[in-house]
C-alpha cells in the first residue's frame, strides 16, 4: 500500500519523500505502559459502591491491563517503567514535530497488516498490541491525524493511509486527506 500511495500522490503533484524516524517504533511499548497505567487508575472508581457490579466481572483483557498498569506504577518499578515511558514519549513526540517542521504531513499505513478475522489473535494479546504500531504515536504526541480510505486489497479488505499533521493544523490535514481519499476517486490535485 505504501508504494501505491507514493505513486498516486506523486501523480497528483504532491512532493513525497521517504524519511526514517529512529524513535518511532519505541512509541508502542511506551504507549502500552502509559495507557495501561492510566487505565488501572481510571478503572479504580468501579468499586461497586455507588454504581456498577463486582470487579470480577471485568473481561480478561481489562483485568490484564489493570494488572499490568498497577505493576508499572508500583513502588520500585515506577522509575524503570512509567517514568522511562514518559521520557520515551517526549523523544518520540519531539522527533515527529521536528520532522513536521520540514514536511507538511507524515503518511504511513494505518496498520502493519490487513484486518484479521474475529478471534484469530485473541489468544495472543501481544500480537494484537503490535497492530497499533503506526497509530499509538498519535495518542502519545497529541498531533492531529486521520485514517483515509485508500485501496482495497486483493482479499476485498480495505487498506487505509494514516496522515499526521502539524499541531493545530487540522483544517489543512482534513483538506489533504480528502484530496487523497481513495473512496471518491478524486484525481486532480490541489497541492
Amino acid at each position, binding site marked *: 500500500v505504501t508504494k501505491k500511495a507514493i505513486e498516486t500522490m506523486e501523480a497528483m503533484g504532491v512532493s513525497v519523500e521517504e524519511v526514517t524516524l529512529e524513535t518511532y517504533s519505541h512509541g508502542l511499548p511506551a504507549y502500552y505502559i502509559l495507557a495501561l*497505567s*492510566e487505565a488501572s*487508575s481510571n478503572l*479504580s472508581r468501579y*468499586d461497586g*459502591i455507588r*454504581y456498577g457490579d463486582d470487579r470480577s466481572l471485568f473481561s480478561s483483557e481489562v483485568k490484564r491491563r489493570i494488572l499490568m498498569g498497577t505493576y508499572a506504577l*508500583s513502588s520500585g518499578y515506577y522509575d524503570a517503567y512509567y517514568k522511562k515511558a514518559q521520557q520515551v514519549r517526549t523523544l518520540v513526540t519531539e522527533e515527529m514535530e521536528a520532522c513536521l517542521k520540514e514536511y507538511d504531513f507524515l503518511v504511513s499505513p494505518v496498520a502493519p497488516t490487513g484486518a484479521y478475522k474475529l478471534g484469530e489473535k485473541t489468544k495472543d494479546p501481544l500480537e494484537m498490541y503490535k497492530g497499533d504500531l503506526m497509530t499509538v504515536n498519535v495518542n502519545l504526541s497529541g498531533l492531529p491525524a486521520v485514517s483515509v480510505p485508500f485501496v482495497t486489497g486483493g482479499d476485498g479488505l480495505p487498506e487505509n493511509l494514516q496522515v499526521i499533521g502539524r499541531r493545530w493544523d487540522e483544517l489543512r490535514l482534513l483538506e489533504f486527506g480528502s484530496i487523497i481519499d481513495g473512496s471518491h476517486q478524486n484525481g486532480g490535485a490541489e497541492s
Partner: protein
Amino acid sequence: ANGTETSKAERLSESYEAVIGIECHVQLNTATKAFCSCKNEYGAKPNTLVCPVCLGHPGTLPSLNRAVVEKSVLAGLALNCQISKESKFDRKQYFYPDLPKGYQISQYDIPLCHGGYIDVTIPDEGTKRIGITRAHMEEDAGKLVYIGSDGLSGAQSSQVDYNRGGVPLLEIVSEPDMRSGKEAAMFAAELRRIMLCIGVSNGNMAEGSMRCDVNVSVRRRGAPEFGTKVEVKNMNSFNAMQRAIDFEFIRQCTLIEEDKEDEIVQETRLWDENGQFTAPMRKKEGLADYRYFPEPDIPDIVVSEPFIEGLRSSLPELPCAKRARYSGLGLSEYDCLVLSDDEDIASYFDGVLSSGAAVKQAANWVMGDVNAIIKAQGIKFSELRMSPKSLSEMIDLIDKDVISGKIGKEILPDLIEGQAEQDGVGAFVEAKGLIQISDEGALAEIVQSVFDENPGQLAEYRGGKTKLKGFFTGAVMKASSGRANPKLLQAVLLRMLDETN
C-alpha cells in the same frame, strides 16, 4: 495531668527531649469544591452537595477551581514560603469507601509552597521559629457515618456522605522543630490564627475544617540522631494535642528507661479522649504503596510573578506583625497576645486607638470590662452597638476627670446597648447628671453636710478612730450620688476631718 504525671514528665525532661512535627489539613473556604462546581458547605443534608465529578462517575473530568490556587498561594505567602512557579497534581491511589475515584488528587513531589516558617510566641518563654517544610493542595474525601454505634465496632452498617468529597484542602507540614506538647499546641493555634486572619479557612477543629496529626519521637538530650517516629491522630483540640504529646513523651521515655526501646515502633496511634491515652490504630500492615503518578487530566499549574505579588500585596496585617505593633505601643506581652488573638477583638481595639484613646486605658477596658460583657452575652466585638469611638470618648472623659472610673463601669452596660451612639457619651453623662463633682467648694459643702448628720462618728474619728475615714468616704459618695471625684474627695475629706475647730 495529675501531680505524679507532671513530676514524672519533669524528671524525664531532664534527660530526654521530645521531637515533634505536625501535619495540618486545612479546609479552604472557597465557594465551590476544588474540581467541580458543587457548593463547599458544612452541615448540609447528606449527599445533597454532589455531582458526577465529585462522585467519580464514569467519564467525568476534574476542572481546577482558580480560587483554590489563589488561597493556597496566599497561605503560602503568609507562612513565608517559596511559591513554586510551576507545579502539578498527582494521583495518590488507595481504596477506601469514602474515596470515590479510588485515588485522591494531591501534590506529591512538587508542592505549591515550600521552605517557610512561622514565629510562635510562648508566654513567658519567648518566641520560637518553627519551620514549614511544605504546603500543598489536595481534595478531601467523603465522610463515613456508622449506624447504631459511635464507631465501626458495634455498628450495624456504615454509610458514606460524599458532601465533603472534593472540598479543597491545604496540607501544611512543619519541620520537626517543636520540643513539647505546649509548643505544638501554640504552633497549631498560631497556624489557625493566620489562616483566619487571611480569610482562607474558618479553622474549626470541631467541625473538621482543620485537622492536625502529630509525629512524636524522643531522644536523650544532646543526642544528634532522632528516635523512632510515632504518628498520633484523632485529636480534636489544641489542648488534646498537648495532652497526647505529653502522654507519648512519657510512654516512650518510660520504655527506654525500662530497657525496652525496641518496643517503640513506627506506627499510627489514636488519641483516646475519654481514657486520655494513645493506642495503636491497627495491626501492622506494612508501608502503603500509593503508586503516585502525575494527574494526566489537569494541566500544570503555572503561577506568574505578577500573580504572586498581587496576592502578597493583598495580605492583611498578620498576627505576628500585630503583636509587634502592640508591643511597640508599650503593651505587655500578655496584653499583646490577648488583643491580637483574633480579628474581632483586634479590630475593635484598633478602632478605639484610632479614635484617640490612650493605649493602656484602651487595652484595659477592651480586655476587661467590655470583654466580660462580650463573653456573658455570647456576642462578638463587631456586633457591639457601642462603637469603638464611643468607648474612646468615655475613656477620654475619665482621663479628663469629667467622670470617675467607677461611673464609667456603671454606665458601660448602657453604652454597650448603644444609648450614647446618637448624641455621644459626653451628652449622655450630662443628661444623666453623672458629671463628676470636681469643685472643691461643692465637695466641701457635701462633706460638711455629712459631718452635720453624723456628729457621733465625727467625734469618734477626731478622738482617734481614724478607720472611720472609710465610713465618711462612703457617706459622701452616697450623698453625691457617686459623683464625687474620688481623689479630690480624699484630699478635702482628710483636710476637713483633721481640722480642729
